């Protein structure tokens, strides 16, 4: 292939852009029993087109962070900057795939996607909107299920519709909140492959929450590991260097795979972290003073 300078230039420019920036984000929940610091001092810069996963133990606030990026939860401190602009509340530039699909059960699959398309592209003609809905249903292989309601579909199919709905509004960033957590292992694998294929085609910037190490390795450009709450923050960021397009089978045979998997597992379950966690468990037995403070 001939060397083309412009491709390199574009690539560098793309990599250098802080497309999505999470800047000094903290979140404190105020409840009846006091104040709970969930997240503190989170800084993360994501390039355009990058696939980043957040991984951490349950309760570490990774889903809260995703909700903050979505604009559904306001941070106590800090800002989210997307394409140079500070975000103010939720909006269709950030498509969300929910853990429990969040499809409206009284609408068919096509109607669920149509609701999104019509709301975000009101200037499109009816037929254009219809085409767009059909196109995204086809993309996730659910053309036949267009007229079915979510209750008539399997969990995997529902999540596919959720992904189609989130992408049909042409978001700048796709946010996935443990989208495959509730699925069986085989279905999960299929959907991961499909997500990978779709992402490679669209090149959308993705921030995904997961607790599945293999999932993170298969999909991500970078894995962001979060420490345990309260006051969770980014513990370590690991770049995943495997070449794309990736395939699940080739990936596990690559020599680096076990190494990177080990790195992540070491962080999540390694001595330091386990010590920290058991310390906290002891502390919480003694009393809630560490966690809760008087208002």
């Amino acid at each position, binding site marked *: 292939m001939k060397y083309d300078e412009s491709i390199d230039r574009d690539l560098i420019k793309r990599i250098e852009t802080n497309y999505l920036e999470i800047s000094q984000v903290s979140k404190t929940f105020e409840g009846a029993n006091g104040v709970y610091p969930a997240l503190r001092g989170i800084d993360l810069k994501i390039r355009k087109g990058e696939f980043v996963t957040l991984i951490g133990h349950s309760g570490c606030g990774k889903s809260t962070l995703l909700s903050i990026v979505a604009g559904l939860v306001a941070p106590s401190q800090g800002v989210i900057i997307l394409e140079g602009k500070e975000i103010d509340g939720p909006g269709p530039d950030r498509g969300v795939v929910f853990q429990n699909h*969040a499809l*409206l059960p*009284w609408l068919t699959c096509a109607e669920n996607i149509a*609701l*999104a398309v019509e709301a975000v592209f009101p200037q499109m003609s009816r037929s254009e909107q219809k085409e767009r809905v059909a196109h995204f249903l086809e993309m996730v292989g659910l053309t036949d299920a267009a007229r079915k309601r979510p209750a008539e579909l399997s969990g995997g199919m529902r999540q596919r519709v959720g992904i189609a709905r989130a992408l049909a509004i042409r978001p700048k960033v796709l946010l996935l909140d443990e989208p495959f957590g509730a699925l069986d292992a085989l279905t999960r694998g299929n959907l991961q492959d499909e997500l990978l294929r779709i992402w490679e085609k669209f090149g959308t910037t993705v921030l995904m929450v997961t607790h599945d190490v293999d999932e993170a390795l298969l999909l991500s450009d970078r894995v962001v590991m979060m420490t345990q709450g309260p006051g969770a923050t980014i513990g370590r960021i690991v770049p995943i260097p495997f070449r794309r397009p990736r395939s699940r089978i080739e990936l596990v045979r690559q020599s680096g795979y076990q190494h990177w998997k080990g790195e992540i597992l070491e962080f999540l379950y390694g001595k330091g972290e386990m010590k920290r966690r058991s310390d906290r468990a002891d502390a919480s037995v003694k009393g809630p003073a560490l966690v809760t403070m008087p208002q």
Partner: protein
Amino acid sequence: MEKVEMEVMYGGEVEETIPRREEETEEGPGPKSRRPFRLPRLDRLILPLLVLLVALGIWETVHQTVAPMLPGPVQTVAKSWDLIRDPFFDRGPNNKGLGWQLLYSLRRVAVGFSLAAAVGIPIGFLIGAAPTFHRAVNPLIQILRPISPLAWLPIGLATFKAANPAATFVIFITAIWPIILNTAFGVQKIPNDYIAVARILKLSSWRRFTKILLPATLPYTFTGLRISVGIAWLVIVAAEMLTGGIGIGFFVWDEWNNLSLEHIILAIFVIGVVGLILDSAMGRLGRRFDYEIR
């Protein structure tokens, strides 16, 4: 599974159970039937009939032993046969057939109930959607809700200075509470995820209402409507006894003054059947809007 449970809850909807039974025998024991060796129609037709016969037997025995004043089943049918045969005779304002009496009562219920729905559903939505409004009106609702329907009658009579609107008012004021409370509950129960979807898509208020709020709440509203229509039917009979005029309630009172207990018993039976029909009609209508069953 859900349908089977519904049948148990709303048992007695014969029209609905029969076609389903045929469906099952055609297909053999389908996934719906948990017990494969059920005697056909035993628990749905034969047993209820048996119970009915036993009840009639007890009634006849009571008539013949302890209460000779109370007419037995045979006597009841014989002496009220002219009423059964022609429900729509009209011999002047004070002598109309049972059918007319029913229609007059149903009209009062329809007006009072419709008003209650028209006022109650919007209030319910407001309460469910605005916590401040909820805190503001909840104490008042809790005070007004347990008041016996008939206690409202003098208020109605004093306000409207006529029996008919007073009766309608009593229906309205008793039927409105379940509608308000169930609608408000439905609004409060809308899953957060659906609200999040609306926020992400920046749906207009109108779309938010028609595509999310309304369909999510309707099943709850219909539960309220169903309870209300039952209450309304209970109340109208009592209210009419006091207000007079044409209507099934006053008919009962009138026949008591005539000492024709056979007619009263017939009227009681008819009241029960109409109540059942109202309830199952509302239930069926509600199921049409229930996304979980549909």
